[in-house]
């Protein structure tokens, strides 16, 4: 194994650097022979050194199905035996994964710096809450000013409200995209940042729709593990498929070089609008799920800090990688809870640590700095998960362990 790979390395070196030397050394005379040889060597080195991309859809599909089934079993187990706290964390992970994956589509894949997810989340949360609350509950909640007419009478089922939440968020995103993407530059960041603030102000002041600072209470707790993870997995599937299609390639081309993308007949405006609207749709739907998870929403829930957290997730995971967004969301959501241990009093060897409130944020920041120092492009870089890469990595680790034991 070792000898073979060294040989390949040598042959590759020859073909790349010393074509003449290569030909003499192996007494290869004709062009075609050489080409065949080079192809063979490259093929060998492909299987040994690099991520093997032999097409094995059958095996990959089977592995995906098995792991998905395992995950669903885990969800079932969690749903039946886990405590409220753990289930809540699992739900949060699902919703933040949705948010991070969709946020990554516009920020990482298309390269347009948006700061708007908190606004779309708020819009989605309010839309779906107003749609699922029963007319009696609405009458009881809106004590300052009564809710305006058509909304006060409407009551739809939970799935419909989630879709509606997505649609409203997407429509608002479309309205913003039309002026913003007509011009080039980082205007999207400014406009979405402003939009987030406007939404806050509207939520606080248009009392006859949002109930002002009191917010909406007593929402039916529809969101459970099946809903949150179902929608989350569906989102990941849709985003992955979109990114791997020609539309996704167009998005990446716009990120890499907008002028060159346009010279290749890609309508940059339409591509950016598609990515932005799509991500707003997902964020709106996530808002609906979040509202029915925590059952009480108020304007103060949707501050800029939320966007900031999402930004941390996708940067830690690797800007531009959907896999990275998932990893980032899980790490930050779950890790944030694990770090709570540092805020509680502990006694170790007779020494009592009182626990400092806010300590977890300090540790979190330090970890962030470390990531930015030692893994600047995030955990995944721009790579995506593939079974082959995972298997190769396992082989590498296996070989390493064998050599050192």
């Amino acid at each position: 194994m070792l000898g073979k790979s060294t040989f390949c390395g040598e042959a590759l070196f020859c073909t790349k650097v010393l074509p003449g030397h290569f030909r003499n050394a192996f007494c290869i005379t004709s062009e075609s022979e050489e080409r065949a040889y080079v192809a063979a060597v490259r093929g060998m080195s492909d299987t040994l050194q690099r991520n093997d991309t032999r097409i094995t859809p059958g095996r990959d599909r089977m592995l995906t199905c098995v792991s998905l089934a395992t995950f669903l079993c885990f969800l079932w187990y969690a749903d039946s035996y886990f405590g409220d706290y753990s289930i809540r964390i699992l739900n949060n992970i699902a919703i933040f994964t949705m948010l991070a994956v969709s946020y990554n589509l516009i920020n990482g894949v298309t390269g347009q710096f948006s700061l708007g997810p908190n606004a779309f989340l708020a819009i989605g949360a309010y839309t779906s809450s107003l749609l699922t609350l029963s007319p009696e509950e609405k009458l009881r909640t809106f004590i300052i000013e009564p809710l305006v007419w058509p909304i006060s009478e409407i009551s739809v089922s939970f799935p419909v409200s989630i879709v509606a939440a997505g649609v409203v968020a997407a429509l608002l995103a479309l309205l913003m995209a039309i002026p913003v993407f007509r011009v080039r530059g980082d205007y999207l960041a400014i406009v979405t940042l402003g939009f987030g603030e406007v939404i806050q102000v509207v939520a606080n002041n248009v009392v006859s729709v949002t109930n002002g600072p009191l917010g909406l209470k007593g929402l039916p707790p529809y969101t459970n593990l099946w809903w949150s993870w179902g929608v989350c997995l569906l989102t990941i599937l849709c985003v992955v498929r979109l990114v791997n299609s020609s539309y996704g390639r167009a998005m990446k081309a716009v990120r890499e070089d907008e002028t060159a993308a346009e010279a290749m007949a890609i309508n940059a405006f339409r591509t950016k609008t598609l990515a932005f609207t799509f991500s707003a749709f997902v964020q709106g739907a996530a808002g609906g799920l979040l509202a029915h998870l925590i059952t009480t929403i108020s304007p103060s829930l949707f501050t800029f800090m939320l966007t900031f957290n999402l930004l941390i997730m996708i940067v830690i995971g690797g800007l531009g990688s959907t896999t990275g967004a998932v990893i980032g969301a899980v790490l930050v959501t779950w890790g944030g809870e694990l770090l709570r241990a540092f805020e509680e009093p502990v006694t170790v060897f007779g020494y009592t640590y009182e626990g400092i409130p806010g300590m977890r944020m300090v540790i979190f920041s330090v970890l962030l700095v470390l990531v930015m120092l030692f893994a600047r492009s995030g955990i995944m870089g721009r790579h995506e998960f593939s079974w082959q890469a995972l298997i190769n990595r396992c082989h590498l680790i296996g070989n390493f362990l064998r050599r050192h034991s």
Partner: protein
Amino acid sequence: MSGVFFRTERLTVSFGGLAALSNLDLEIQEGEIVGLIGPNGAGKTTAFNAITGIVKPSRGRIVFLDADITGWRTPRIARSGIARTFQNIRLYEDLTVTENVMVAAHCSVRYSVVEAISGLGRFRSDERRIHERAQFLLDLMGLTRFAREKAGSLPYGSQRKLEIARGLALNPQLLLLDEPVAGMNPHETMEFCELVRTIRTELGLTVGLIDHDMGFVMDVCHKIKVIDHGIPIAWGTPQEIQNDPKVIAAYLGETSA
């Protein structure tokens, strides 16, 4: 077709008060290879940028296949059949070589976003078609062995070839090459000369090119336009251009009396 294949009429581009290009009349017949030469800063790249809609012409007209394309947006011009390469290579560096070529075939994609997400309808057949087209073009340009590499990791000469392969994926009728052999050694230039001829005959292309390598330009072009300081000074076959006193003056300076 009796109409015009490609023509610019008094094409002028000004940046502020500076006329980067003035009154360029350039006519390209179908199937020709036409060169655009001139000293540095003469306005050659500006002409290409104006033709492809990257800068807005301040005056004049551009006619392509009997349609007035002046003032069209870049993607529309590209879709109408004009592909180009860039002087300072502009690839999508973080995408693979195959993806780079496939990006340019986006305008020929017939499936919708919904079909892309669901994987139904024309998605599979279209993706296969684009992929096969990309493989064909990479093969034509001799880049097949790099297919899965990142475009940014390719050697310089191959990056230039990849840019052409990407342009060809648009299925253009007119291919504009901006300094395609810059930085190549004489041997590579000769190979490239053959390549240009091959793609022209195999794909039925018309080619417009800019270059400073006079040997290459004289060798490959049927007609040559010379511009200096934004002003067209000569037009003709390579022989005529080589003997034109105005061209010699522009390149070597006026002979003082």
